[in-house]
Every structure is written in C-alpha cells, then in structure tokens.
C-alpha cells in the first residue's frame, strides 16, 4: 500500500507504521506462549525462556562475540561479491561478446545451492574463516552480477542516444549515464544478495566453524538440548536480517535512484 501523505488515513500514518508490526509481533509471542503451555512440552521454550537464554548469552559475553563473528564473515564475503559482481555485471550487460561467453556459465553455476559447495569449501579452505567467506561470496555474487547486467541491458535506449548525441563516450558515458541508469536494479540485486548472504553464513557456520550464530544453534542443541538457546540464536538471526534489509532499503530512497522504483 502507498504511504503517500496526500492519502494519509487509517493505516497510513507514522504511528501505524510502528503500531501494526509491533502489534503483529506481540500477537505472535502470545500465541507462541499459549501454544507451548497448552502442548505441555518441556523441551520447547516459551518466549520468556528465550529471553532468559539471551540474557545468559549476554552475561557470558558470547552473544556479541558470535554476532560479530557472523557479521565479519558476511562483510567480507558480501563485500567481495559487490566488488566483483557490479563491474562484472556492467561489462556483461554492455559488451555482448562477454555476455555470450560468460552467461551460460553463470546461469549454470547460479542454481547450485551454496550448501552444496560446503564440502568443496572445506577441501579448499579448511575450517578457517575463509571457507564461510567463500560460500557467502558465491551465494551473493550471482544475484549482484545478474541484476547489474540486467540493469544495463534494460536501460532505455533514449538515454544512451541522448548522451552519445552530446559527444559522450568511454569512461564518462559509463560513469555518468550507464551506471546511474542501472543503479536502481543494481541496488535491488544487492538487497537480495545481502539476504542470501545472511542466510548462508548461518548455514556455513553450522558445519565449518566454531563461532557465530549458526555455530551457537548447533552447539546449543548438541551440548545438552538447550532449545532456549537454539531459539535465541534464531531470534538474533531474524532480527539482524531485518535490520540489514532496512538499511539497504534506505539506499533505495536516495534521490538519484528513486526514479527506478515506481511511484511510491
């Protein structure tokens, strides 16, 4: 739904933007509590047990350590993917021989789940940080490359013609027209890739390393069926994913790219 000020009404104000999602979360928590109590399970935690688990992790100094470890890996893997994927995608979108040469390879590698690469990553990089970083890179580089490529290919021809008419060629043409014309789609690819990167770091940490939120979950289960800590880890993963998405969404409101996202 649009949030344009001209149509501000019920469900559209600033208050609603906070009240509605928080109300939903509160309802879910209550439902969760009631369901656990009703089922009589003594293994699955209630919301307050999870909160206690989180407090325990903070007191032991583990929570911050694990969050930082996970974010560190995402930063590296995702950062490398941006550095490689954006230029690669722009070249593929602009220069047809490169597209013809590389696109089939990219489309064949893309559907291979990063999880399937885990044994290979361990073989190549051991269980050091490099293995999950490699997996995150692999998972996020394809969405970024493909959307950057599409951004150039879908550019309206009239922009290119206008720029060429004014005598623009080479690097200025790329920097001042092709890149900005593709930027909205590039950012969309980056947002998707960041979500995937966060998904993959947790999966990678469950197998390959001994720190991070993914490790926390597996470790809590193996060392004494601490399901309160398992769910605490899940809650942290979800919350951080939400924050990351909100941050990237902010980028989409920058004036020079807003035109690419419809009239909202």
């Amino acid at each position, binding site marked *: 739904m649009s949030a344009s000020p001209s149509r501000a009404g019920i469900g559209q104000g600033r208050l609603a933007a906070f009240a509605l999602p928080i109300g939903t979360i509160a309802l879910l928590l209550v439902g969760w509590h009631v369901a656990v109590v009703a089922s009589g399970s003594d293994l699955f935690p209630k919301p307050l047990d999870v909160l206690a688990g989180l407090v325990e992790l903070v007191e032991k100094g583990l929570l911050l350590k694990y969050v930082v470890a996970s974010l560190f890996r995402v930063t590296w893997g995702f950062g490398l993917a941006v550095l490689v994927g954006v230029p690669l995608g722009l070249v593929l979108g602009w220069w047809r021989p490169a597209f013809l040469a590389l696109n089939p390879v990219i489309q064949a590698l893309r559907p291979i789940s990063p999880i399937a690469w885990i044994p290979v990553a361990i073989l190549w990089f051991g269980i050091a940080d490099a293995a999950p970083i490699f997996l995150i890179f692999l998972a996020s580089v394809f969405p970024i490359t493909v959307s950057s490529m599409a951004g150039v290919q879908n550019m309206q021809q009239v*922009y290119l013609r206008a720029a060429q*008419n004014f*005598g623009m060629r080479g690097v*200025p043409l790329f920097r001042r027209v092709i890149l*900005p014309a593709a930027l909205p789609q590039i950012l969309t690819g980056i947002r998707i890739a960041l979500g995937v990167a966060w998904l993959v770091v947790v999966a990678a940490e469950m197998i390959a390393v001994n720190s991070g939120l993914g490790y926390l979950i597996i470790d809590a289960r193996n060392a004494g069926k601490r399901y309160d800590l398992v769910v605490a880890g899940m809650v942290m993963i979800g919350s951080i994913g939400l924050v990351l998405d909100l941050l990237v969404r902010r980028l989409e409101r920058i004036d*020079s790219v807003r035109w690419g996202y419809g009239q909202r």
Partner: protein
Amino acid sequence: MANADPIVDVADLWMSFPGKQPDQPVHVLERVGLQVRHGEFVCIVGPSGCGKSTLLNVLGGFLGETRGTARVEGAPVRGPDPGRIFVFQENGVFPWLTVEQNVGFGLWQRSAAERDERVRHYIAMVGLQGFERSYPRELSGGMRQRVEIARALAANARVLFMDEPFGALDFLTRLKMRQDLVRIWQSENKTVLFVTHDIEEAVQLADRVLVMSKRPATIQAEVVIDLPRPRDLDSPGYLAARDRIFSIMGMDAHGGGVS
C-alpha cells in the same frame, strides 16, 4: 560559411526494419529526398507511423539507412554529433539528474561558470525557475519536455532535429515555446528540422513544410510558407497554406475526408 551548400542533403534514401519473418522487412522509407539549407526552418508533417521519427533518427545518426545517403553538413552521417542535437519524441531527460544538471548535461566539457550561466538562462526561458533542484519524477510531462528542450538549446548546436518536441505541452505553453524557438532560431542562426503532426504548428513555424505520404513513405509534397514573422494566424496566406497541406493529406480544414 558556404551558405549555398545544403546543411541536410538526402537523396533516394531507403530504410526498412527487419520484420517478423526474416524475408519480409517492414519498408518504412522509400526514395526519400530532401534538402535543408543553412539557416532554414523546415517542418515535416505526415500521418502517424509513416516514418517521420525514422527519417529524423537516420539524420541524427542513430539509425543506419538501408540504401542511399544522408549527408549532413557536407559529410555522410556516421553517428551522433554534438553539433547537431536531437530532441526526442520519447522523453530523454535523465531521471537521476536534477533539472539544472539535465539542462547542463550537454555542457559537460565546458567550465562550471559558463555552464551555470547558460543553464540559468535556458531554465528561465522555458519557465522552470524554482525547479532547478527538482528531479524529473517531481515534474509534469510538459515540464519534463521543457527540460529536454532547454537541454538541447543550452548545448548551442548548429542544427536542431526536433521530433514532436511540443507534443506534451498545453496550448499556451506550446504557443510560447514556438515563439521562443523562432526567436532563438532567428538570433542564433540555427538550422532546424522539426517533425510535428500538427499542421497549424508547421505553418506557424516553418519556411517550408514537407508532407510525407503513408508508409512506405516518401516526401509527397513541399509547401513553401513565404509569410513574414511574427505570423498572423488570420491572414489569407496563412489559411491558404494550412488548407493546402490539409488537402494534400486528404482532409479538408474542417476535419472531413476528401473522397
């Protein structure tokens, strides 16, 4: 300047697009010939879809011809040229730049001072003061079209190829833009080739009106508008020229068909 040589010189130009079937190309232009002299204002009118934009795009260097040659400023057209600026029918204003950045776009190789000066001048001319920092998505369609016109004029080209530039404007703005364009054309010694579907507009603006036929199109007739400027829209000469073009295009001036 060799004023005798035509600025635009087209002889026996053919153009077809590849069609749905490979062996059935869409013939758009056939045997088109036209000349525009230095400093002339020429309008092209013709039915929708006949190939006016195609012809202009060949002259602008954006499309290659199939047969024949298009010569502009003495040489065959090989590609776009900053001395010959195109105003596009589909709006070509860059949505990621503000109004003033768009208007100054063609001056990217000039000094900042010169650019600012010209940008201010042409923004005022098209009546967009106060919107310098606005983005195109915050403007109306007609305002965006005015940004594109200001951008083309600010670049100070010798030749202007304009493809229905005033199509999206309201009546009053259109009248004002016509006056401004004629004034700039007269004072800055430009050559203008102007496509429009509006016969009245053509007669108000042009030294000569070229009438294109239906597709595959050729130049069907030439009407010289030898009237003083500013033009009196009630003068017999104006009305006669207008009615002549209407009848060439198979209509009478009151909208009925000629059998």
